[in-house]
């Protein structure tokens, strides 16, 4: 793994930029080189938002993500908008609320109930980003579990550590338990 590029997409306010920062920090703890960036529209809430993370053993020169290896998407709008930026052979994690799945047979698609788990199981919609990180980890092992947990705990508000640990665990479980919801060439 020389250079892995991730794109986390959804709508503004879903905490995806924080998720990108946490992931980058975890990779940093693993001793990797990282660049985290984001782009946003003029809206503070809503709209299409994306955070990007590059993780590399080597020094990162060009700091932008064009075509990514791994993509997470939490909304239909973001999915439609960014799907073509996922590399052939790449991994797509979509939230279960996304009904119109991309018509691509060159990628692996995992459809898991991230938002639903946050709301119904944990009662806190704002931890969806942490659940998503758990799922990304379980699927890709792109960072170590210890580093991820350390990064999460270092960035979430004081007093919410237990909740976020649980969210992370739920994220792992979603991938373990929802294999049947995978689409694409592999599943």
């Amino acid at each position: 793994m020389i250079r892995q590029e991730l794109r986390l997409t959804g709508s503004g306010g879903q905490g995806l930029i924080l998720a990108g920062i946490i992931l980058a920090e975890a990779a940093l703890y693993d001793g990797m080189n990282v660049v985290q960036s984001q782009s946003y529209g003029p809206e503070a809430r809503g709209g299409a938002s994306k955070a990007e993370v590059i993780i590399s053993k080597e020094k990162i020169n060009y700091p932008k993500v064009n075509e990514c290896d791994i993509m997470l998407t939490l909304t239909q709008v973001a999915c439609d908008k960014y799907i073509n930026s996922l590399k052939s052979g790449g991994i797509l994690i979509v939230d279960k609320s996304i009904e119109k799945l991309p018509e691509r047979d060159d990628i692996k698609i995992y459809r898991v109930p991230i938002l639903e788990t946050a709301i119904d199981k944990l009662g806190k919609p704002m931890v969806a980003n942490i659940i998503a990180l758990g799922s990304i980890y379980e699927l890709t092992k792109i960072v170590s579990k210890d580093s991820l947990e350390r990064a999460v705990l270092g960035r979430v508000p004081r007093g919410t550590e237990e909740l976020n640990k649980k969210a992370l665990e739920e994220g792992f479980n979603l991938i373990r338990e929802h294999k049947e919801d995978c689409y694409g060439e592999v599943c």
Partner: protein
Amino acid sequence: MADKIIKLMQGNEACVEGAIAAGMRFYAGYPITPSTEIAELSAEKLPQVGGRFIQMEDEIAGISATIGAAIAGEKAMTATSGPGFSLKQEGLGYAVITETPCVIVNVQRGGPSTGLPTAPAQGEIMQARWGTHGDHSIIVLYPWSVKEIYNTTIRAFNLAEKYRTPVILLMDEVIAHMREKIELSNDNKVEIYNRKKPTCSPENYKPYEVKEGDLVPEMAGFGEGYRFHVTGLVHSESGFPSGNEKVAETLINRLIDKIEDNKDDIVEVNEYLTDDADIAIVAFGATSRSAKSAVDTLRESGIKAGLFRPITIWPLAEKELLELAKKVKRIVVVEMNMGQYFLEVDRIAGKFTKVEKYGRLNGELITPEEIISFVKEG
């Protein structure tokens, strides 16, 4: 590892951390994308170290209060972007003629006018050099990474103090907003330069008098017993206005000479694989990261490419560019504009080698692939 802190840091954050490490204790500004985090973090951090932050009513007030605080004796900074940099030009000239040390950060965005507020561009290369009215010289620094933003911000303060001049820190939106690894030393061992204070008695103090062999006058602060006068008018050594042509010529020449005659100290260039290069890419900031990627790929395909990266973009690295021009067969200037720095590189290097430009302006960073194909296909 106790002597090092490794952390993930945003470019704008590194600017504030560097500034505070350099001794910044005053910030006045007006929020504007993509520089806003510099104001926000200054507001948070300054009172913690006994410093002061103020959000002014507009961009002009931001630079004015910054200069005021610097004359009162503090190390002061303001930050802005695009439209705000245009508004700050008059104040910048005031800092030049009054020889007020201060740092002005411009995190560039797409222009002209409101342009592309959240997208990168390198459109103020010439504005940073010539934007304020009247002839003058200026120091402009241009970092390419989060770590270098930290170091360069410290250097900006040091040069400002040493040469009693405003120093412009040009940044790219790409680097300002991205986060990457930064290693900071834990022992606070940062080299700091402070303005020279007068040692003479107040009766003998002339605020713009220079000592034999020096070009930079000593600087007292307000309230330190020296009761001097500061004006944006042309002034004599006494600090008071003068319309005398000899006084005017002496002052303006000294303001220019104190920078141009000290280029060896001020100019900093980073060269990568230029020693045996046939083709040199000249680039700065985010663009130079793409260029470095391109150089590596070109080398792999057998093309001897190198990167010439000015960190001090003004004053111009003429000597270094001349050496480069005599060494390589071709120079390509890559910048996110339609050819601003190219004009200067061509002026210096054009007599000795072929100089070409590659520029694009659409809100996206130039990619390594584009540079490679331009180098290969022209």
